[in-house]
């Protein structure tokens, strides 16, 4: 699969999946696949970092295995766990089977009692999957150090059974919202891509792609408005996912233009903080003038 991929084919596959890419994104994905190196994607929330991994899995027609990071994420959540209940049940059943203690122990520490978590699943998967390690910045530094070992050796040691080597090196995508600086060591093992909020034309194209049938001018008005909102000092700057949600909601409500009432009543879709809503409401008149998307009364 890896040998058949070209830069053009990556761009076309992304386009086919409805992902509006740019040359930098396509090239980073292409090089990450070709060089078997993890791709670290950073950027503000809601710009489509996670989406890239999903689209890539669809485009490569393979499985997506996702490891959602959080504070306190440990070895057992990420790699494997023994199925204690099943082991106990098995021991009860085997009580009168006449097997020796060693035999029974060997039985219960076999693969059928192993619960594979995302990292182990990814390296033992039948086909080369896409492994998404989402929001790595939320995980603790200890986990990051452990991840380094997996990402460089592609093998995991299970004390009871031995070392498991990767049957395929997965295509790894790591995402981070930069709430914590990642270690240099992890960064140096990855290719790097930064995705910022899209510019006006790209945002318009994404809205048109994700909300089929939306009028071009209306899509542009929404994009212009969102670009201006992002210039305000907000607690949570809305991303492209909010733009898409807003456009979908407006299309669902059969609106084909923006006016003051519509914007005021639907601000909750794009802003998730009451102070931000208040801030935008107080700046609406100014926004109207700047964007020029509202009909003059």
């Amino acid at each position: 699969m890896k040998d058949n991929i070209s830069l053009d084919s990556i761009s076309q596959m992304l386009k086919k999946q409805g992902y509006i890419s740019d040359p930098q994104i396509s090239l980073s994905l292409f090089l990450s696949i070709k060089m078997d190196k993890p791709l670290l994607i950073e950027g503000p929330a809601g710009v489509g970092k996670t989406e890239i991994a999903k689209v890539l899995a669809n485009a490569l027609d393979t499985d997506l295995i996702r490891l959602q990071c959080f504070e306190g994420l440990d070895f057992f959540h990420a790699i494997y766990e023994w199925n204690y209940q099943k082991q106990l049940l098995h021991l009860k059943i085997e009580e009168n089977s006449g097997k020796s203690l060693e035999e029974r122990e060997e039985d219960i520490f076999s693969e059928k009692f192993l619960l594979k978590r995302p990292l182990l699943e990814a390296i033992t998967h039948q086909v080369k999957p896409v492994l998404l390690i989402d929001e790595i910045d939320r995980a603790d530094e200890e986990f990051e150090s452990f991840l380094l070992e997996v990402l460089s050796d592609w093998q995991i040691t299970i004390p009871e059974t031995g070392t498991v080597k990767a049957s395929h090196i997965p295509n790894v995508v790591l995402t981070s919202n930069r709430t914590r600086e990642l270690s240099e060591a992890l960064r140096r093992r990855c290719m790097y891509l930064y995705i910022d909020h899209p510019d006006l034309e790209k945002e318009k194209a994404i809205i048109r792609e994700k909300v089929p049938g939306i009028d071009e001018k209306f899509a542009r008005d929404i994009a212009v408005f969102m670009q201006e909102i992002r210039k305000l000092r907000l607690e949570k700057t809305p991303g492209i996912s909010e733009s898409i949600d807003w456009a979908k909601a407006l299309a669902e409500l059969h609106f084909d233009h923006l006016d003051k009432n519509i914007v005021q009543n639907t601000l909750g879709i794009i802003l998730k903080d009451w102070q931000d809503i208040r801030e935008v409401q107080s700046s609406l008149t100014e926004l109207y003038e700047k964007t020029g998307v509202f009909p003059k009364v």
Partner: protein
Amino acid sequence: MSQFDRTGSLSTYVLLFCRFLRDHHFIIGPEEESDSFRAISHLTLISEHMFKYALKSSLVKNHQQYVKFDSLFEAFRDQYRKGVDAKERLKPETPKNKRPVIRNIKSWLSSDRGDDKLSLASFSAMHVSASISSVCVPDDDLAELKKLIERFSEKMENAFNRRKKYLPRGGPLSLRTTLRKSMKHGGEIIQLYYSVPKKNNTQLFLLCDVSRSMDLYSVFLITFIYAFQQVFRNIETFVFSSRLYRVSGYLKEGNFSKAIEKMMQEVDQWSGGTRIGECLYEFVSGYERKIDSNSLVMILSDGIDLGDPALTKEAMKRIYRRAGRIIWFNPLAGHKDYQPETRAMKAALPFIDVLVPLYDMESLKSMVSRTKRFKKMV
């Protein structure tokens, strides 16, 4: 890529470019160089854009470098076209009126002050050698400072939480939890659980002002932030003057001189003007998801500022809403006649939980002994 034909091969160009980036503080080793060659080899048709993007993907490792990369790429290309020897001439330019960074921090640490000033307010227990090669703080002084901060850390950890957590190993056996957890196995006791005091996951943020007005306390402050980073586990340290720099990574280095050396390479705004509002705003925008009610934000500044006080107010308001508490260490606050009258201090004051004077070892000792009081006040 016709420029290569005139002055050298593609590989020479890439190697020289890697050196050029290294001169601009990019961390580029043989592995990154090899990655950049591999990346280029996968391109069938090399346009300048694709060439740049391929190098960018393989040589850039963080956002700061990502932002700088395009301009550096262009600067290198222009110089290369002019046939300038990249190794000798393409070193970072030093503006005429600006001293090199290494000298800047040395003078910030000691040499540009008169001895009389130094004896007034700097960290008297320490001797700083401002030799060109390294900044030295005697081990005893550093150890004393660390010990004080450890005491501060213990107080922070212990006073907050009396809750327990239950683990398969640790303190005394918890029969109640063991029986409760055995329910899922039909009452069969498979695992014993022990009670362990729950640790407080207080996340600390330390922001230290390194502008010109803070020069007088520089020796103490730089040692203070280093010791803090060494003692606390969950801490992010920043320095700021007119820009904000995250320096936690450099201060984790076990050797003090090396840590300062590394920090010097990154921070080029020592002893400059202050824009507290902008820097605090940058901090809260970048790290707001990490700041929560368990966070303690410590700001070390005299509050003398050239920036917009409205922005300081807005940034402090945002930090206040998110953080558990805000402590402002102000070196000037130790003076008996001190009033927080500067614009920035006035703007920040409503959002500060505790304002503490901190300028030398004695004031630190006094702060540590009053740590419990901070908590009661908050």
